[in-house]
């Protein structure tokens, strides 16, 4: 058996290589995946430590003829995302179109992509005599919930998200890469048509 100093150095090098390997593998998977744009909204309550990241709340309003909110919580582990016809800076915006227990089942519509995740939805609430009514919404949980960025930028983006109101044109989108393994990886944010992407430098 090698002596203690050599053993320690071997363990240290292996640990370092495993971290570098993880970063390289994730970066390659992120670069090679299918890119989709997903609508984002502000999340409440705010995180107490929200200084250095933007909370990624993938939420969109339910539209007529869109995804039916038949069950509030889906048991399915795969979701089908397809372009909803809208584009931002020439990139198509995707919406939830299907749910399934298999990746093949989720790829229903043309141009759709299957991703691992779950959703929560709420149907629209009709207006009553003392309530103006509320639109329905769908929340997607694709395992990505934070975009780490410096404090000033994070606070600026959070403010913009909070200024968005229902019915207005959305200004902020998450740029997500869907890999061959069905995992969603965050590539960055699209703010007023401008890409804010992760890079090494």
């Amino acid at each position, binding site marked *: 058996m090698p002596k*203690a*100093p050599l*053993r320690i150095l071997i*363990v*240290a090098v292996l640990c370092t290589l495993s971290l570098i390997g993880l970063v390289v593998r994730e970066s390659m998977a992120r670069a090679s995946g299918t890119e989709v744009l997903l609508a984002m909204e502000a999340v409440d309550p705010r995180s107490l430590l929200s200084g250095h990241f933007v909370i990624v709340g993938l939420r969109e309003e339910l539209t007529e003829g869109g995804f039916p909110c038949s069950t509030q919580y889906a048991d399915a582990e795969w979701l089908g995302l397809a372009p909803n016809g809208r584009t931002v800076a020439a990139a198509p915006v995707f919406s939830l179109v299907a749910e399934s227990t298999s990746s093949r089942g989720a790829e229903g519509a043309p141009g759709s992509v299957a991703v691992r995740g779950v959703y929560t939805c709420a149907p629209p609430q009709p207006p009553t005599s003392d309530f103006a009514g509320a639109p329905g919404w769908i929340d997607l949980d694709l395992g990505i919930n934070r975009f780490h960025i410096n404090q000033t930028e994070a606070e600026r983006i959070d403010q913009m998200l909070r200024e968005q109101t229902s019915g207005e044109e959305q200004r902020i989108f998450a740029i997500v890469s869907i890999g061959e393994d069905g995992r969603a990886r965050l590539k960055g944010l699209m703010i007023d048509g401008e890409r804010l992407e992760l890079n090494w430098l």
Partner: protein
Amino acid sequence: MASYRDRVKADLQRWIGADLVAPDKREAILASIPETRRLDAATALAWLGGILAGIAIIAFVAANWDGMSRLMRFAALLLAFLALAGAGAWAAHRERPLLGNIVLTIAALIFAAAIGLTGQIFDIAGDPRAASYGAGAAAFALALAGRSTGAGVAALLFIGFGDFTDRAWFSGLNSEAPWVLIAGPLCAFLALRWGSAPLAHGSAMAIIYCFGWFAARFDDAEAGVFLFLAMGMGAMAAGARWLGSQERRLASVFYGWFAWAALGLFAIAGYLPWFGVEGGNGGLAHRLVWLMASGGLIALGRFDRHMLVTTIGVLSLIGAIFALLSDLGLDLLAAAGVFLTCAIIALVAGLALKQTKKPDA
């Protein structure tokens, strides 16, 4: 407090004065008693200094974190880890075990932080449990490579965090076993082999958790399960006591923890159904056995001069008395009868023990 060596030194002086020991044997006798290693002020300050230095570096990097590029941040993390591991290797080469233990412990902590921060730097979303297990595995590898007890404790902690992340204490464990099931006994083995008290305490608690995990696998736990586990734990306490009698350092730590857990499991068993879900609990008979077991543990603790075991016995006795009084309600006459019976049993047992000791005296 004077060490055993100091006390023998004082006694030797007295025995030499009384002509019981030849003066020329003094040095040979003292040389046969090794100096006990204690955490003296210098060692404590060395630990404190090492930890504060680590905190200072972390605070400095954190202050400049926003101004650094992603690659720079990642490089800073890796360099900090490699520098500490290198210092650990140097300390091992120079045969400075204390320094090696300190830097390898900090290296294990830095690597755990590096996993989390790498995820943050490159926005890699992953399983938080996998991150904890990864940090635990790295800390364990460092502990084994450099014989670092601090890194061993860190490994146990990280693996425990991994087991508890995203689920409640004992819930959701039907499908997957906790990794502490492997890490606990392994660390107990290392604690006995390396003579590390912190590792012994940590692994003893991990083993007790494993017993709790086993009990939690039964949806409708019956007394039988807990009685079985209490007996198993009692047997392990007896085993640890035997190891202690074989001069195995730190076995007494396990003896104390396992004795506590055995009594705890037995106490819980008394409040669960004994004969099916419809059946009643242990009732008065259980409380009486609990009371006697507590008394027995106090006697055993006094006999073994094991303060922790005696304390556990006393606390358990108080618990058993409360349980009995609660069961009997305000029937003080019945309570008096029960306690009188216990007192007679204790007195008879004490007298019997005294009688057996007399022929040797």
